[in-house]
């Protein structure tokens, strides 16, 4: 279905069943942007023509449906699939805009023990056959919810922010992922970077975090107020081409697809804007920037 694949994992030869990549998006700490990242990377990949399914494994605290604006369309959840009240395909909710994008929602009324590692593994395996990418949204913590989410995945994206607690938890997650044989590679996504604070030496820089965690980077997402409005509207920020965070997520998606995209220099990005502002404010004179 896709002309040129850059990956060995998704490379499809004639007659062979398609085998998509299963990527778990995890962080350890809560509130660093796992679900936002999931929604945006998923949407960006789907926009690039890939078939994507997102699995929300945060049983009891589901939110991925909200970020995608699909909360009113959910009929069956992952627990219904596991308990055989419906077929797997019935439970997949198609995105409003992009038919390439599907969501397997979490049950809101059950807890993490409703699904086992084996069951999740099984679901991932089945979905792999029909989709290029299976993105697993992992709950916060390192307990059963995490173990479940990781069970079916072969790759991981660790979301963290340049804050001490988030970095520490990310380190813990890296340790746990390294002990899992199934996880072949993991990469770091640094979220909510605030270039101004980094510039004034009040916040850890991207280099600092990468050095401390000694992990490979897959993306840098700047703090963006647009995330709040996009969440409120139920529309991932990647749909907004002007947004800096949206562009950054697009870049992440491209890197996942194997393209070599240089990392945004956030300081420069902002300083260009600042320069333009300065220039105009200089022209206009007393006008506020």
């Amino acid at each position, binding site marked *: 279905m896709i002309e040129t694949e850059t990956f060995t994992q998704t490379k499809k030869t004639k007659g062979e069943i398609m085998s998509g990549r299963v990527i778990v998006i995890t962080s350890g700490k809560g509130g660093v942007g796992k679900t936002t990242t999931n929604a945006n990377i998923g949407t960006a990949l789907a926009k690039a023509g890939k078939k994507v399914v997102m699995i929300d494994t945060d049983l009891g605290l589901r939110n991925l449906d909200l970020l995608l604006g699909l909360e009113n369309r959910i009929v069956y959840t992952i627990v219904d699939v596991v308990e055989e009240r419906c077929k797997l395909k019935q439970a997949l909710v198609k995105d409003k805009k992009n038919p390439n994008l599907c969501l397997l929602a979490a049950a809101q009324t059950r807890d993490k023990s409703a699904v086992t590692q084996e069951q999740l593994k099984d679901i991932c395996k089945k979905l792999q056959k029909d989709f290029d990418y299976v993105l697993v949204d992992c709950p916060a913590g390192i307990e059963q919810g995490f173990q479940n989410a990781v069970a079916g995945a072969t790759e991981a994206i660790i979301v963290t922010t340049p804050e*001490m607690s988030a*970095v*520490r938890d990310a*380190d*813990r997650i890296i*340790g746990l992922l390294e002990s899992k044989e199934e996880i072949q590679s993991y990469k770091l996504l640094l979220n909510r970077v605030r270039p101004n604070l*980094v510039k*004034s*030496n*009040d*916040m*850890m*820089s991207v280099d*600092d975090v990468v050095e*401390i965690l*000694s992990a490979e980077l897959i993306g840098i997402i700047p703090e963006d107020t647009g995330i709040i409005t996009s969440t409120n509207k139920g529309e991932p920020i990647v749909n907004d081409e002007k947004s800096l965070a949206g562009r950054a997520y697009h870049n992440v998606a491209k890197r996942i697809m194997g393209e070599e995209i240089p990392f945004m220099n956030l300081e420069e990005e902002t300083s260009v804007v600042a320069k333009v502002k300065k220039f105009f404010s200089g022209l206009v004179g007393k006008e506020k920037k």
Partner: protein
Amino acid sequence: MKDIFTDLYNKVLGFFKQAEIEENAKEVACNRLRVVLMQDRTNINPALMEKMRKELVELLSKYVEMDKEALELNLEQDGEQMALMLSIPVIRAKDEDEIADCESAEEDIKDSDDVIGEREAEEVEATEDNEEREETSEEAPEEDEKCICSEVECFCIDEKSDKCECTEKEEICDCGKEDCKCGEKLSTVIQEKKQTGNK
């Protein structure tokens, strides 16, 4: 002239020191994180590090005279490799004679330790009198401790010194119970205590 230079030197030093004190939030975060992550990863807690530090000071002061307070021992990540970094401000290196002195002093201590150890071991086996003395001196202050014989039938658990006479004889306990083995146990415990004491 000299004063001017020292004044200037102090000023420059003061300037840099001030800069050091006002460490920015970013650096503080990085440094704290590095330390805490090393502890998380290795399970080496600060107390253990301190112990290592102390023992290293002890060992190294045989060869060099150093600023013991300023010695720094840190776990650091160097790429994939975990490294133990030791930074020692050396005041001066000791010369051969001093090192030799240190070594001979150490050997003396070792030798005397060995001699004492052997002698005491012999004493335990051979002389009863010594045994008694050792016993009372070691048993007396530990009143909370239960009698070592701790056999169910033995009275000494409750009223150690009064009824049970096992503290007076080495091999046979007089507490009147057949199963009591306090005599045996006592002697082994004392031996152990002596050994740990020597260490």
